[in-house]
């Protein structure tokens, strides 16, 4: 089971865990991204996330499929928020269930690492004195 969501609504942590639970699963690993209050020493006021939506969903689905090929998983969930997020809010939740926890940990880490490399979502950091698209320039 693969559960992919791109939404401007608040992500639901318990809902994500419940969605991947199954009576066959012995462990769930959940990665929760949060908005930090500072980057490179500068105070971040808020973030804005933008996605190329159809392609982002397609790439998220590809990563989930890759993870299910690499490890014996029961369910994989990738939820990502778009729009304006304040410090402490949650832009991303990855949840993975498996019979054994090693697979859940490895797969969860693979998914967030790969998502950050391939999924067309962009983050703008807004500071008191300006704003910047993260990673755009060298």
């Amino acid at each position, binding site marked *: 089971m693969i559960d992919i969501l791109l939404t401007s609504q608040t992500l639901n942590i318990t809902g994500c865990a419940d969605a991947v639970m199954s009576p066959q699963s012995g462990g769930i690993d959940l990665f929760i991204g949060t908005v930090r209050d500072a980057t490179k020493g500068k105070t971040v006021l808020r973030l804005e996330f933008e996605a190329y939506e159809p392609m982002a969903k397609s790439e998220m689905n590809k990563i989930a499929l890759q993870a299910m090929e690499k490890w014996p998983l029961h369910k994989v969930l990738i939820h990502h928020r778009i729009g304006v997020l304040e410090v402490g809010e949650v832009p*991303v939740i990855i949840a993975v269930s498996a019979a054994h926890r090693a697979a859940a940990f490895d797969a969860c880490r693979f998914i967030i690492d790969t998502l950050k490399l391939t999924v067309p979502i962009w983050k703008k950091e807004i500071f008191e004195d300006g704003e910047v698209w993260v990673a755009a320039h060298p």
Partner: protein
Amino acid sequence: MIIKILAFGIAKEIFGGSSIDFALENEVTTVDLKAALEERYPSLAELSSYLLAVNNEYAAPDLTIGAKDEVAIIPPVSGG
């Protein structure tokens, strides 16, 4: 031939909008289209990197792009 090119993130600022209609004489490869875009929008070449997506897939350098394809500029992603 007119290709509509979608822009996101920093590319939207470089294009001055969320898409452009880009005129070309013939079908082009990904590599050729990037070169043509950089000639018209030199700021693209200042990015850390960028890719083209065609029909929601990352485009190989030698892919041929025609007027019916959905093309998008993918500047360095930063989700998560």
